[in-house]
Each structure stands twice: as structure tokens, then as C-alpha cells.
């Protein structure tokens, strides 16, 4: 029963979040701040992780494709499709659920326990919309950009690791990258990142907004938000894969 109650509360909060803003100009300023805080500040970590993962995928593919019947250009192709289909959308979203999600939950949770949210409400501001809507738009807007950056960095990672370790030449690797490219894979993954972005922003925001107590509960809400968001990302990954590839 508690699960249904939580789902109900989540949708009621979303109803408040998507109501008409008091003053669009203030929201616009908030949005730019959130894009910087949640998106721009994630560029570095996304790039680093993607470069390493691209390199690791390349090496793993090479070492596990020991058959002489398999052409080595498949390493580039495999790396590209792994990055596009799963790593740069799903795995990266799981990572962002940790970084961005815990940030959102702890920020809103701290505002709740220090009565800053009550203070907004007392002024007549729709606190849910004011605090959460710019975060949702920022994360949903920045997610596809991070996805594209991640794919690009992952391919670069493979391009560095493959030739350096001598398992594949630059020409063969790049040949694989250009082989049998399916544009729909990119569309599919961007749809996924948009959905995951929405989850990354809203689930932690819900957890933070409903914190009751003190610092300990803020920490718990932050942990809970990461766990719940991760599970939901995997669940929606399954659903979207089934729906979009059918």
C-alpha cells in the first residue's frame, strides 16, 4: 500500500510542478543556473568516464573475439554500438543518478529541513514549481548533449587504447566505426536519455521535497533517491527497448 501512496504523492507533486509559473523571468534565470550546476559541471566526469570506458570496451572486444573468422574492424563497430545503445545512455544515466540525483535530493531536502521551502510557500510562491521545474528542464535538456559527448569521447577512448595496445590499427578501427551505422540507434538512445533525464530530476526531487526531520533524513533521502532512480532507469530501459525495437 505504501508504494501506491508514494506513487500517488509523486504524481500530485508533479501536478504542482507543472502548474503555471509566477514569474517566467525568475524561472528562466533559475533554469540557466541549473543547467550550469547540473549539466555543465557534469561534462568533465562524463568525458573522463566515457574515454576510459571506450578504451576498455575496445580492449575487451579484441581479447574476446579471438576467432580468425571475425574481422578486426568489428572492434570499432562493437564499441560504437555498445556506446550508443547502452553505455552512453543507460550506464551514464545510472552514473548521473548518483551525481546529479543525490545533489538534487540533498539540496531540496536541506531546504526543507531548514524551513526554506516553508518560507517560499509563506511568500505565496509555488515552491514545488520554483525549485523542481528548472531542474527537470535542465536535466532533460542537458542529457542528450551529455549522451552525444559520451559517445564521441568513448570512440576517442577506443581510438587511443586500441592502436596503443597494438590490438587494432587506427584505419581498421575507424573503418569499423563507419560500418553498418543505423541512425535509428541514436534516435532510440536519445529518447531513452530524455526519459532517464526526467527520472533523474524528478525522483530525487520528490525524495528531497518530502524529507521530514534533520540532516540524517536528508542523507537517507539522498541514498533512497539514488537507489530508486537507478531501479527505475533499468525498468524503463527494459520497457523502452521492448517498445521501440518491436
Amino acid at each position, binding site marked *: 500500500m505504501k508504494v501506491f501512496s508514494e506513487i500517488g504523492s509523486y504524481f500530485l507533486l508533479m501536478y504542482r510542478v507543472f502548474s503555471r509559473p509566477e514569474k517566467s523571468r525568475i524561472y528562466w534565470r533559475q533554469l540557466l543556473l541549473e543547467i550550469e550546476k547540473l549539466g555543465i559541471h557534469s561534462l568533465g566526469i562524463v568525458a573522463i568516464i566515457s574515454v576510459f570506458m571506450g578504451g576498455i570496451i575496445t580492449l575487451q572486444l579484441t581479447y574476446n573475439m579471438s576467432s580468425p573468422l571475425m574481422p578486426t574492424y568489428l572492434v570499432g563497430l562493437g564499441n560504437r554500438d555498445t556506446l550508443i545503445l547502452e553505455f552512453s545512455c543507460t550506464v551514464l544515466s545510472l552514473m548521473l543518478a548518483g551525481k546529479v540525483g543525490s545533489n538534487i535530493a540533498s539540496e531540496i531536502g536541506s531546504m526543507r529541513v531548514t524551513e526554506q521551502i516553508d*518560507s517560499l*510557500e*509563506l*511568500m505565496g510562491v509555488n515552491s514545488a514549481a520554483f525549485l523542481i521545474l528548472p531542474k527537470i528542464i535542465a536535466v532533460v535538456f542537458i542529457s542528450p548533449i551529455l549522451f552525444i559527448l559520451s559517445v564521441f569521447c568513448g570512440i576517442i577512448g577506443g581510438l587511443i587504447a586500441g592502436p596503443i595496445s597494438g590490438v587494432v590499427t587506427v584505419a581498421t578501427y575507424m573503418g569499423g566505426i563507419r560500418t553498418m551505422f543505423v541512425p535509428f540507434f541514436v534516435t532510440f538512445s536519445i529518447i531513452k536519455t530524455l526519459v532517464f533525464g526526467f527520472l533523474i530530476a524528478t525522483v530525487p526531487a520528490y525524495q528531497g521535497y518530502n524529507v521530514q526531520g534533520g540532516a540524517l533524513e536528508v542523507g537517507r533521502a539522498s541514498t533512497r533517491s539514488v537507489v530508486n532512480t537507478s531501479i527505475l532507469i533499468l525498468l524503463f530501459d527494459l520497457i523502452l527497448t521492448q517498445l521501440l525495437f518491436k
Partner: protein
Amino acid sequence: MIEIRNIKKSFEERPILKDISTLFEKGKTNLIIGQSGSGKTVLLKSIVRLIEVDEGEILFDGRDIRKMNFKDIKLLRQEMGMVFQGGALFDSLNVEENVRFPMDMFTTMSTAEKNKHVDFCLDRVNIKGAHKLYPSEISGGMRKRVAIARAIALNPKYLFCDEPNSGLDPVTSILIDNLIKEITLEFDITTLINTHDMNSVMEIGDNILFISEGEKGWVGNSTQVLFTRNKKLNEFVFASPLSKRIRDLKQREDDE
């Protein structure tokens, strides 16, 4: 003027407010006093509808906040200012931006007008040269004063203060009390202060409501509170040896 009628509130079958009715007058500092856990904060937050009561009426100049929809509550709340226990200043905004925030949200004032009004509000609470500081960079007393400045930024009709003196030294407490009193008189607003500070009671208690275990225990003013025969109120007011000595001295003085 704010009137509450037969307010009842329970949390998980545990009654916190038991049928409280009273009147908070305009242009006066109305104090809600009582021990910690007596239900003061619940009452204050219930009045502004941050907490939903189970029963009763809460009338703001005749308008029942409990019967209002979300939109009307938002409009009514623009007539309110509140000073929270910890100040509740926005961490990401500096002092100036905190005070300007309600104006940004709800007025069409120009930037110059807003800046002028921010200066007026901060001057009013005696804050100078701290416009660009963040809440984490100022003292507890200053935070309270900035919170008061923000609360009066939109010239409210109702001012609510939840333990404005908590965590402050006696000298700063008196400054805050006097400031609230002056603002109440200057702007002719209905002020409700939640406190268990006896200095506040004696200094600015125009109208005092004593709550004991969720019940209305006593109503009076700062003069009457010293000579009440209400046992629970006496235990609360004269809890410290110092206050007992003051009462005895005053009684002796009056007898002479």
C-alpha cells in the same frame, strides 16, 4: 486582526492542539508562549496553513484561510511575512538578493526602485555594509534581522515570528524584540510571536496566549502575567530563581 476558533490538531491520534480559540489584535505584538512541545509552533504553522488543522476556523480579517483554494491562499500569503526559527534565508542568495526576492516575484517595481526598497528594509533592521554577504557569512542575530527585513519587504498585513530569539544572546534578543515591536506599530500590522523567552514576554507582550499541553491555558498581557494565579503559567514564568526574585522584589515594592 486574526481570529482562531476551536482549532484542533492531532498527529497519529495524538492530540497536539485541543480546541483553541483566541483573537490576535492588529497593531499589537501578540505572543504565544508555552513550554517546548506545548504546541506553539504547530499552532503558528496551522494559522498560516503550513499545517492543516483537523477542525476549526482561522479568520484573517474575516477571511477563513481553511475555506480558500490554492490560488486564494497564495494571494493571502502575499500579505504575510514570516520570520522562521533559523531565519530560513536562501543559502544561494546574498543578503540583498534575499530581501529583494519577494519583490522580484510579486512586484513590477523597476530595479532602481527595488534597490531603494532593499536599502530601506535593511536600514530599518540596522544592517549596513552586509548587502553582498551570504547567509553563511553572517551571525545568527544578523540572519534574524535579514529575515525580518525580507518579511517586511512587501509591507505585510500580518507578521509571524517563530522563536525570533532562539540561539541569541540577551542583548541581541532585546534588539530583535524592540525591532519587531517598532515595526508592528510603524506598519500597524498584526504580529504573532512564538516564544518561550521571558524577556520578550515582559518587553513586548501586548497580548499573551499561554498554551499548556495543547490547551489554551491563559490570556493576558505582560503586566498581568506577573501576578497570575494560574499554576501552570506561574511554573512556566517563574521557572528560574532570578525571575522568582524579581517577582518577590516587585511585590515588596508594590506593598510598600
